[in-house]
């Protein structure tokens, strides 16, 4: 196992001392701002029509929401370990942790597909009502983030053990990918609470 230590300062951007890449952090913050607007729009709609939102909320299957939360949190824990291993220069172990991240994260896609199919089978769709518009669009866009995250992880598997890349470069991208994956977790947790748990009336 290669143990060339990467040190904890992975970033080469002037004036930026955090983990990962300053540009990726900008992307993450911009994306979270967009989701913040989504959430505000949802809350405004819920305040205007609490009965509709509550009736619709009760049509969601809490078990899927909970399972998806646990899946993403487990996957996120492996990703955090991958970043820690990379910080210590344990590149092969970091790679193994990212494979675990992928394996434990993939069921989220399966679960989402089953949940959406069940909704369509019950005649619920994007245009059923305002709640389901937001449900399908927000979880759909979140799902797109998840798919992109899987692609990022696949690339990082190669990056982790790429001896042609400097250790600081490898660490920077693993940390940046980890930050993105945690954003996917975080956004889901808010979506789960907002769509499945919060009573509107």
């Amino acid at each position, binding site marked *: 196992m290669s143990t060339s230590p990467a040190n904890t300062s992975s970033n080469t*951007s*002037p004036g930026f001392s955090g983990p990962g*890449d*300053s*540009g*990726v952090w*900008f*992307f993450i913050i*911009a*994306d979270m701002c*967009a989701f913040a*607007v*989504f959430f505000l*729009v949802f809350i405004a709609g819920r305040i205007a029509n609490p009965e509709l939102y509550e009736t619709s909320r009760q049509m969601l299957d809490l078990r899927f929401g909970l399972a998806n939360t646990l899946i993403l949190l487990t996957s996120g824990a492996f990703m955090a370990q991958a970043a820690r291993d990379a910080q210590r220069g344990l590149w092969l172990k970091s790679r193994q942790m990212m494979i675990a991240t992928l394996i434990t994260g993939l069921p989220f896609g399966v679960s989402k597909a089953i949940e959406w199919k069940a909704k369509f089978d019950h005649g619920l769709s*994007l*245009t059923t009502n*305002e709640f389901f*518009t937001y449900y399908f*669009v927000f979880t759909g*866009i979140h799902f*797109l983030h998840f798919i992109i995250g899987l692609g990022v992880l696949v690339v990082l598997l190669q990056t982790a053990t790429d001896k042609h890349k400097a250790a600081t470069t490898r660490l920077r991208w693993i940390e940046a990918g980890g930050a993105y994956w945690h954003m996917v977790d975080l956004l889901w947790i808010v979506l789960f609470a907002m769509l499945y748990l919060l009573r509107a009336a």
Partner: protein
Amino acid sequence: MDNQPTAAVDTRYWRFCILMGPVFVAVFYYCWGVLGHNFPPFAPNTPASEVAGWYRENVNSIRFGMVVAMTFAPAYGVWGYGIAKVLEEVVGKDNILVQLARVGAAWTTITLLIPTSFWLTAAFRPEALPDWMIQMLYDMAWLLIDLAYAVTSVQLFALGAGFLADKRAVPFVPKWLAWYGIWVGFMFILECVMPYFRDGAFARSGILNFWIEFIIWMVWVPVLTIYAFKAVGRIERGE
């Protein structure tokens, strides 16, 4: 990667091309947006009689607005080509990202010209057209200009990826702006749900699919222009 000193680069006309970006935004905003009642647009659930009535009452200002908007639509492409020249100095002339940035700008110009001609058609003889037909032309133009988002995303992604490859100590375009462009390209995907809604946040006039989508793109153009102007100066100095 071509990061060698480039003092010999012929930068004549580059500044003019790059200046066309803000010119496009200003002209298009006023002529297409204000004169054409597209900024903000009529909500999709606006009665056909209201849209048609507005067209008949303001026929000459709409014609003027659309004619000028069509005249200046190529300014976006000219700007895109100017920015692509700067990108050449980062990734090299033959890099496919340069080609994609150019073609994305060119395609975007087409997707601005064609729908603008539909709005102009509605204003050509509105007194002879039934209300529903004017509404249909208005809808058709909006569906095209919004759903053609992907061609602009090609430009946004190519420029973002290309400028991120800049190895200079101080890159021509800061990392955050390159990532911002990529983010805007992704955000455009919200337009996919626009055809399903006649009111609300995802309608063509809604907070998400109009206000946010258009503003984040229209901000990107002048901000990138500022950095491109600085880059041209640096290229001339061989930095």
